């Protein structure tokens, strides 16, 4: 039953571009999908290990820049006469490299940053993102600074039945993003339900206790950061080849905040949370735009909404909905194990 529902749901998602004639809607869905991938990666850190990383956009941006630079090629003066450069590489190679580089950055940052916790960690992560952004602005030779990297080629893949195919159109990109999103979801689910996932949750709930029972806390934190960073990097790379222009603004703190809002509103530490939150905050701006609301008002609304959610649904929408559902089942006398699910357990 559950499998059939999942299959039906997937079928629906994959079929959207076939019957949706409005390409703008497809475009909005692509962008939303990219942000959902990023939000899922943030959820891994924020929701499962309980570390609030406010520099998450750095990994997204690094993914975007690495993939863009690989596919465009670059040459940089290391000293006045030594030049390091690279010919343009095909995009199918650039994206995995971007993912790996973002993961490596995650490893490096994890090693450094997890010497500290709580507020200190938050500030290290913000600082890291700002430093990376300033490098992107100032290292004009490599990144073109505020002039941005233009004309990034879209992905070309050999597909069975189609031969060499270039992802120019919106529906194709939609399928691409959806596929990556599904893969990311499966990766997160696997990770969370594994031994490593239990270790993460243990250290979120009570770090000294987790250490005492033999969980290598730093190792699992670094591992989570690597996976999370790589996933954010893949979102960034997809973004680069879809929008086809990357400027230092991809590092803006606002994007991190958007991801955090998505995760927190949807429900941190749940698999569906970032998806629900991502859908709400990805589509909401477009809905508000229909009513011709000024962007400032829209952001004020976001901020207020976030505060309200934290006050009234501190766990987020998904756990609240699940609780409500269980209570309803209980009242109708249908559910046997209708007791509210303990919070913090990975659910579906």
């Amino acid at each position, binding site marked *: 039953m559950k499998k059939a529902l999942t299959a039906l749901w997937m079928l629906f998602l994959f079929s959207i571009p076939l019957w949706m004639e409005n390409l703008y809607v497809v475009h909005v869905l692509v962008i939303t999908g990219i942000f959902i991938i990023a939000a899922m990666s943030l959820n891994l850190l924020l929701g499962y290990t*309980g570390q*609030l990383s406010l520099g998450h956009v750095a990994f997204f941006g690094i993914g975007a820049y690495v993939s863009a630079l690989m596919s465009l090629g670059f040459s940089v003066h290391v000293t006045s006469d030594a030049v390091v450069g690279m010919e343009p590489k095909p995009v199918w190679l650039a994206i995995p490299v971007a993912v790996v580089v973002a993961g490596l950055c995650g490893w490096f940052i994890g090693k*450094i*940053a997890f*010497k*500290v916790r*709580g*507020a*200190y960690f*938050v*500030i*290290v992560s*913000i*600082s*890291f993102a*700002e*430093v990376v952004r*300033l*490098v992107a*602005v*100032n290292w004009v030779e490599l990144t073109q600074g505020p002039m941005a990297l233009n004309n990034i080629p879209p992905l070309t893949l050999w597909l069975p039945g189609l031969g060499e195919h270039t992802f120019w159109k919106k529906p194709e990109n939609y399928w691409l993003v959806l596929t990556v999103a599904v893969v990311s979801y499966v990766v997160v689910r696997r990770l969370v339900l594994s031994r490593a996932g239990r270790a993460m949750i243990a250290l979120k709930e009570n770090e000294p206790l987790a250490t005492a029972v033999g969980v290598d806390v730093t190792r699992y934190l670094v591992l989570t950061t690597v996976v999370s960073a790589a996933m954010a990097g893949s979102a960034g790379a997809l973004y680069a080849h879809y929008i086809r222009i990357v400027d230092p603004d991809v590092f803006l*703190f606002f994007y991190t*905040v958007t991801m*955090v*809002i998505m995760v*927190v509103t949807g429900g941190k530490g749940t698999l569906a949370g970032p998806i629900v939150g991502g859908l709400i905050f990805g589509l909401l701006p477009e809905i508000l735009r229909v009513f011709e609301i*000024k962007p*400032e*008002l829209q*952001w*004020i609304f*976001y*901020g*207020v*909404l*976030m*505060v309200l959610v*934290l*006050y009234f649904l*501190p766990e987020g929408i998904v756990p609240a909905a699940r609780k409500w559902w269980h209570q309803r089942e209980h009242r109708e006398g249908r559910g046997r194990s209708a007791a509210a699910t303990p919070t913090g357990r990975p659910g579906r």
Partner: protein
Amino acid sequence: MLGGIYALLGIGLTLIFGIMRVVNFTHGELYAFGAYMMYMLVMLLEVNFFLALVLAVVLGVALGAIIEITLLRKLRSANIDTTMLVMIGAWIALQNTEQLIWTGVAKSIDSPFPAAPLVIGPVSVAWNRVFVFAVALVLIVGTYVLINHTRLGKAMRATFQDRETAALMGIQIGTINTATFALGSGLAAAAGALLGPVFVAYPTMGDLAALKAFAIVILGGLGNVVGATIGGFILAFVEELGAGYISSGYRDAMGFLLIIMVLVFRPTGLFAQKEGVG
């Protein structure tokens, strides 16, 4: 001069964090609020410059008290992450309110000081910068005295050391929290009101200021007023050196690199022998 401003920002934030255990993301907005109040009072209502300065600080204190009472009071027992996220929400709402009211265009504020600089030997300094520095210094010393030599300050220090015991001794924790947040916000507004006329006021001016304030707090050690003061001057100094010797584009990156290095090598801050207010 920048050192003084940074110190003001840092002290406000360090007090709030130390005493209330709140990571105050609205701090930068209070700073922007101070600058905009100056703009509104001086340029639109044509109030006297010095009177406007006082009013801007008073309004900053009032806004801080409002934020504390409406948002933070109910969250006193919540964990630090929840309050942090609430503050982020408040920060987004405040910043965009500023943008909505005063638009994204930068506003300049007239200052009453003569354009000719003050020349002392080989050094020449603009008058308004001398003024800013002097006022900042007075405020820093004032805060120091308030914390170390008044009843309110004593209560704040007690709350910092042990919240429960302080409450048992009859200290109204709620009042202390409001006072602390209002004081910290007032200092941030003062920093903005002082710096607004030197540069310009724009809606996102608070972001970088807030991040730098965090850097200073970490440099000085949490809750350490003297540390924050010195940290403020160190940050300004490092930024100037970095801008001068490496590249002016990386000026703002210096502070962040400094934070990362301090946290890696001295996680409790440069001057923290023990954590304590004062």
